[in-house]
């Protein structure tokens, strides 16, 4: 439902997004029936397509040509998809968006090769663009995203980490790819450098806000709404902002410490989820997300007025208030 609402916000882009959806399907087409099935399984699970949307919106500030924009939008979504299929192996996740993950439906090896295949398709496509700057940004982003994930594994089950560790992680894990989507969209449409820089920073701030909200929703949503067990982050040892804020309460700290890295029954899991949900951690995390949202909106205020800014603002507000 909420995803529908979000899609309504960028309904102006519907024809282009439908085109991108078709291109995504073509991009994962393979001689291997299994790879085809696995990739389509992933694609059909849906998603918010937030990265292609930001590429297209950023393109509105320059010389917008959908044939050029899709050359960036499609690979960026493919890169995101490839990372999801590998993440599910890392997190040992059985369910994503309410459907079995590739690793659960087939196995870890098939998931690894599917991810490699999709990433290679992304690179094959993006190399149709010859502008070196595009590749400099994208390759740097890919490396930083991986480093972010490596750091996330390093930091797992460490309840005593500081806020800076968390922000460093989510910057690399989420914000950078959204920031690069905006910057690349601006670049290939030929905007001036100043506009591209504002769009890059907008993407970064909105990405940070988006991830914090995601981390909050892991505690405030139901299993059904999430399409996976609530509290999955905690179960997997990922210490997110709501936990970092809530741990200030010594009782909560002790409870978290006692249950980290422990096999939890559903009852125990839901109890912890409930305690975090009712703690001050959620409100503090929301305030932090709001701060990033305001910074994102400020970047928009420097951009030339037009439909692009209007839609970006609407999406930004929606992200700040979403509950899915």
């Amino acid at each position, binding site marked *: 439902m909420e995803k529908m609402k979000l899609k309504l916000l960028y309904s102006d882009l519907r024809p282009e997004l439908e085109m991108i959806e078709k291109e995504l399907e073509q991009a994962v087409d393979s001689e291997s029936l299994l790879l085809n099935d696995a990739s389509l399984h992933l694609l059909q699970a849906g998603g918010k397509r937030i990265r292609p949307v930001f590429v297209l919106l950023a393109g509105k500030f320059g010389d917008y040509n959908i044939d050029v924009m899709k050359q960036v939008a499609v690979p960026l979504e493919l890169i995101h998809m490839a990372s999801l299929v590998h993440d599910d192996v890392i997190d040992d996740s059985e369910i994503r968006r309410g459907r079995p993950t590739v690793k659960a439906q087939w196995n870890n090896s098939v998931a690894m090769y599917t991810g490699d295949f999709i990433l290679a398709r992304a690179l094959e496509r993006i190399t149709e663009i010859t502008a070196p700057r595009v590749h400099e940004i994208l390759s740097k982003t890919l490396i930083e995203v*991986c480093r972010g994930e490596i750091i996330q594994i390093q930091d797992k089950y460490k309840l005593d980490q500081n806020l800076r560790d968390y922000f460093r992680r989510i910057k690399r894990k989420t914000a950078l790819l959204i920031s690069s989507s905006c910057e690349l969209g601006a670049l290939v449409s030929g905007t001036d450098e100043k506009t591209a820089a504002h769009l890059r920073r907008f993407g970064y701030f909105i990405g940070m806000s988006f991830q914090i909200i995601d981390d909050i929703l892991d505690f405030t949503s139901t299993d059904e709404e999430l399409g996976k067990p609530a509290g999955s982050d905690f179960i997997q040892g990922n210490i997110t902002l709501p936990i970092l804020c809530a741990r200030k309460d010594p009782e909560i700290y002790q409870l978290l410490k006692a249950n980290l890295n422990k096999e939890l029954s559903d009852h125990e899991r839901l109890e912890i989820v409930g305690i975090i949900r009712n703690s001050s951690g959620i409100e503090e995390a929301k305030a932090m997300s709001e701060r990033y949202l305001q910074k994102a909106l400020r970047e928009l205020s420097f951009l030339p007025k037009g439909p692009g800014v209007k839609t970006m603002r609407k999406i930004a507000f929606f992200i700040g208030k979403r509950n899915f």
Partner: protein
Amino acid sequence: MEIEVLDAVRQRTLDQFTEGPSVKESRLFFLLLPFFSGKTWSAEIESSAKTVSIVYAALHAHDQVREDNPISKEQQLTVLAGDLYSGIYYQMLVNSKNIAMVQKLATAIIQVSERKTSFFEGMDRSIAEVEEAITIIETELLISFYKFYGYTEYESLAKQALLYIRYADELERLQSKNYSNFLRELTSNLNHKNYVEHWLVEKLDNLHEKIVKSIDECSLDYELAQFLLHQITPHQHRAEQLTREG
């Protein structure tokens, strides 16, 4: 070159928890063969050769991911190591402004991933199709490099030798009952383990003959030829022994 490749992809946490980047010596040998043979070789080609080895390391890392449940920290980092190496190969080629090579390697990775997945499809296919899949898995990256820089004269030799080394490894696996997906499919095609062994030994004999002939055709100098033969000789002795034993 091996050290330079390892340095390019080094990462503290990965070094601590994973086996680290791994590229077979035989693959490095064939990547450098045109250089060793005195062919035109530039800084750009050298950099490309390094990136091909990094791609080999990336794909190798992902081959090491097992079906453990739940997955261990070492396995989690092995997944990320492969992804990181992929990012690094891309960035290295971007830095040397060689976008065309990024595209060639991406296409080769697609082919390799398709063939690796084919072993999980559970479809009936001929031995020739299985062989074709293994050949692509073992050689496609290298052949893309050769084609890109016009070193196609080494294509046959490289294919034969890399396939030889793969089959020799598979023979060892078979004898130690450490069955790979390839061996499982071969067994289901040939119906019995003994036939698989016989098939592999015959392949090794056949490839050995072809390799000797190709070395001659490529006019490899004496030392290079010896190095290459040395790589396959231990396996050849074993194959001959098995042939004698019937």
